[in-house]
């Protein structure tokens, strides 16, 4: 049975379909693997094999997703022990497709972070180097897939929270088009940016999972689903496709990462694709706009954690205001409090136009940049992260340095467009991620191109022994 460890989710699904193994055996295997996690990747692991485990391997679910009766805390002490009374649509879609919930994975508190060090329940170690971060905020999901304690996982991406940890852990991470996957039951961070997506061992698994996840949901007014069913990728060549490379000359891009990405551009040309440099004049302001819009929305989204109805309530209070203040002061971590304050300030009367208004204008500009780019090219490609996995504690004292981890991933959610990160090689012995973004609803085409590249790159090393 240990040979399941080396197989992709899609291959395991084939084995279940052919009757070579049962769904229960597959579930049991992965339950055992998850129970052995020693990276801090899991916050909760299912103890019982479900009566009907389904025809897909089980899935590790970021703690941010509500699962009925299963602890769901979004990595926050303020929701410690909270048991949802309903299940997120995305998780239900996976269950209905035959993937049972394997466990809940660690994350930065309320998805705010790029290293998983902001979790209320401790950090996650990168399986490639236990002294380094797995990235974030979906750090637990990425580490679990990379370490082989989960066959696949879901995470959420607001400014890079799927793609950046996928990059740092050497796996595939897809952020779908805004609206492709229902947000109902995903504990909100920044509502206009949050999107659920797969973290998988390869591109085919990402497509297989996206097929189950996507769909219009009557419980989410902003959901649309995808206009066409997701096809499994099959491209071997990239003939006729034009790739616009962005950001390789950026200051702050690690030379080793740049080198691996340049080699990947060569691979594109070897496969028949065209590569050209592309300008995204406003994308460089993405981080600034993001750190106004996302905290602003978060300041309202996180206001409901007041100790009145569920979750943590401070024992120290004399009156209503004291209960609110102490509950939130004690329940939230430092980064969450920082962003609530930034967001509250940005929305304040007298500052709204200067901050929120300006940020929304930058957002429109970035969307226009991409629209213009997609008139010239089929895809925009960038490094996913400016660096490989950094050391635990390296950036915790410097929030701005931490924020810049998302430099290449923030523009896409601001524009609402899909992007995938695939591993494209190693630098200093650590994985480098390559990002491919396309126009809204181009997931199948992005995954097809990523698949062709993945085959020629032949990245190995996951699961990390």
């Amino acid at each position, binding site marked *: 049975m240990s040979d399941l460890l080396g197989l992709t989710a899609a291959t395991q699904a084939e084995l279940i379909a052919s009757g070579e193994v049962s769904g229960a055996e597959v579930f049991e295997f992965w339950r055992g693997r998850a129970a052995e996690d020693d990276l801090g990747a899991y916050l909760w692991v299912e103890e019982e094999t479900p009566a009907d485990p389904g025809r897909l391997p089980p899935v590790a679910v970021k703690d941010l*997703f*509500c699962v009925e009766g299963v602890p*769901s805390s*979004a990595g926050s002490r303020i*929701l410690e022990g*909270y048991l*949802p*009374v*309903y299940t*997120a649509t995305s998780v239900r879609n996976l269950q209905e497709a035959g993937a049972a919930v394997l466990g809940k994975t660690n994350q930065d508190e309320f998805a705010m972070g790029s290293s998983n060090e902001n979790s209320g329940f401790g950090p996650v170690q990168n399986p490639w180097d236990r002294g380094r971060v797995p990235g974030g905020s979906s750090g637990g999901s990425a580490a679990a897939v990379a370490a082989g304690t989960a066959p696949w996982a879901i995470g959420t991406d607001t400014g890079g929270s799927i793609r950046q940890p996928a990059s740092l852990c050497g796996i595939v991470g897809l952020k779908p088009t805004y609206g492709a996957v229902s*947000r*109902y*039951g*995903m*504990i*909100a961070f*920044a*509502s*206009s940016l949050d999107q659920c997506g797969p973290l998988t061992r390869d591109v085919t698994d990402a497509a297989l999972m996206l097929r189950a996840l996507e769909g219009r949901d*009557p*419980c*989410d*007014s*902003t959901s649309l689903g995808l206009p066409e069913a997701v096809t499994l990728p099959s491209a071997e060549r990239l003939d006729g496709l034009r790739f616009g490379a962005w950001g390789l000359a950026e200051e702050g891009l690690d030379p080793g990462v740049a080198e691996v990405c340049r080699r990947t551009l060569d691979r594109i040309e070897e496969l028949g694709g065209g590569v050209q440099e592309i300008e995204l004049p406003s994308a460089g302001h993405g981080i600034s706009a993001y750190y106004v819009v996302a905290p*602003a*929305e978060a*300041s*309202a989204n996180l*206001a*409901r954690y*007041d100790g*009145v*109805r*569920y979750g943590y309530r401070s024992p120290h209070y004399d009156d*209503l205001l004291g209960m*609110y203040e102490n509950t939130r002061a004690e329940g939230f971590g430092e980064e969450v409090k920082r962003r609530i304050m930034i967001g*509250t300030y940005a*929305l*304040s*009367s007298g500052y*709204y136009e200067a901050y*929120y208004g300006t940020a929304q204008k930058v957002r429109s500009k970035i969307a226009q940049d991409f629209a213009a780019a997609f008139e010239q090219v089929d895809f925009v490609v960038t490094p996913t992260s400016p660096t490989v996995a950094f050391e635990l504690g390296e950036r915790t004292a410097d929030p701005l340095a931490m924020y810049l981890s998302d430099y290449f991933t923030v523009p896409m959610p601001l524009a609402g467009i899909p992007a995938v990160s695939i591993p494209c090689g190693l630098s200093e012995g650590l994985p480098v991620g390559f990002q491919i973004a396309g126009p809204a609803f181009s997931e199948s085409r992005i995954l097809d191109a990523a698949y062709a590249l993945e085959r020629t790159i032949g990245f190995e090393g996951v699961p990390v022994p």
Partner: protein
Amino acid sequence: MTEAVRQYEPVIGIEIHVQLATRTKMFCGCELSFGEEPNTRTCPVCLAHPGVLPVTNAEAVHFGLMIGLALGCEIAPSSIFHRKNYFYPDSPKAYQISQYDIPLCTGGRLGDVRIHRVHLEEDAAKLVHAGSSGRIHGAESSVVDFNRCGTPLVEIVTEPDLRSAAEAAEFGRLLQATLRRMGVSDVNMEEGSLRVDANVSIRPAGQASFGTKTELKNMNSFRFLERGIEAEVARQEQLLAEGGTIQQETLHFDPEAGSLTSLRSKEEAHDYRYFPEPDLVPMAPTEEMLVRARAALPELPAARAERLERELELPADTAKLLSFRSELGDFYETALAADSDHPRRLANWTINELTAAVGDGDPADTKLEPPVLARLVAMVADKQVSASAAREVLAVLIAKGGDPAQVIEAQGLGRAGEEELGDIVDRAIADNPDAVEKIRAGKQQAIGALVGAVMRETKGRADGGEVQQMIRAKLGE
């Protein structure tokens, strides 16, 4: 101080919140609550559990469009919701989803008053404070009932076009009647399905610019609205007379004490940090939605009053009463359809005799059928039955139903015939020689004694005027 000597002119605008009578809440599938056990009409969405999302209630949008069209507003091609942020236990999300700078409807008019805007939002939960104060400060404990939380609300804001407390109350009643007629709300002020705030300022008569306004919150009847505005206008006048200045503040009117207390000043005003609600897409009414909303509009009270006055020549007050209480108007017009000969008399019977019997109730809920009322009124007009006897007949018809002629027959209430009446009059003349003497001596008032005797004898089945004529004829006057 009377209106005539007033140096200051009040300027009043009102804001009305109306709970919509939809089946479910504004942003979730919970049914609306009508006094159910606390916290039984709730779900993860209206309790603001983690991860939930709002979905706009299509019926509430439909009602909002009906109201906008009824008030002659411009309907926004695309309007959006905002989040209005504040911490309070009645708001589980800690923000209210409301409309801000792009409301569903703008402009419009009802009667002489211009409508500024109409927008959709959600109601808060209900707080119950234990302890003597009845308010959150000083309460021993407070509990929250989330049944009301998320009930659809429409807020209607007027321009500052009202110039007296009485005008404000009158406008409020017209708006209430209009909304009730449309069936979009129960508009019950005591139960809080209609709530009124007033913005009040005064200015020297003839001045074009407005003075500083204060806001009077949540008066739960139009009578209290009127008294509250009067008290506030008086307070502002006195303040200015003493050389003081008006502070912008929110006030609470205590109808029992007749006093005003400040809830908060401008400095204490909240910064609600409004921003567009990212969980909802813009509301863009389609042509079909507008057609459907327009088709759902009944004839509205103002139009009905105008029609009744014009077509049936009813007095303005009568036409208004029949229109503002549409159940009376409906009963009246159904009766009129059965017999259209006596519109005025029928209207008087409806608003006087019928309302005396049913109070605030709906006459359609009694045993009386509208055509039966028309028949009874026709019999009065044709002098087949006297007015006073007809009132007795009406009481029987309301309680038991049936046909007026049969009731008259059964109870012996038919009008006394000429022969019978002649005999009775002869007897009265014979029995009251003193009175006859006085009449002949020119004391006309003395005829009352004879008429009274006849009326006693006929038990009200005769008409006083007719009896008087007959007496005079018999006495050769």
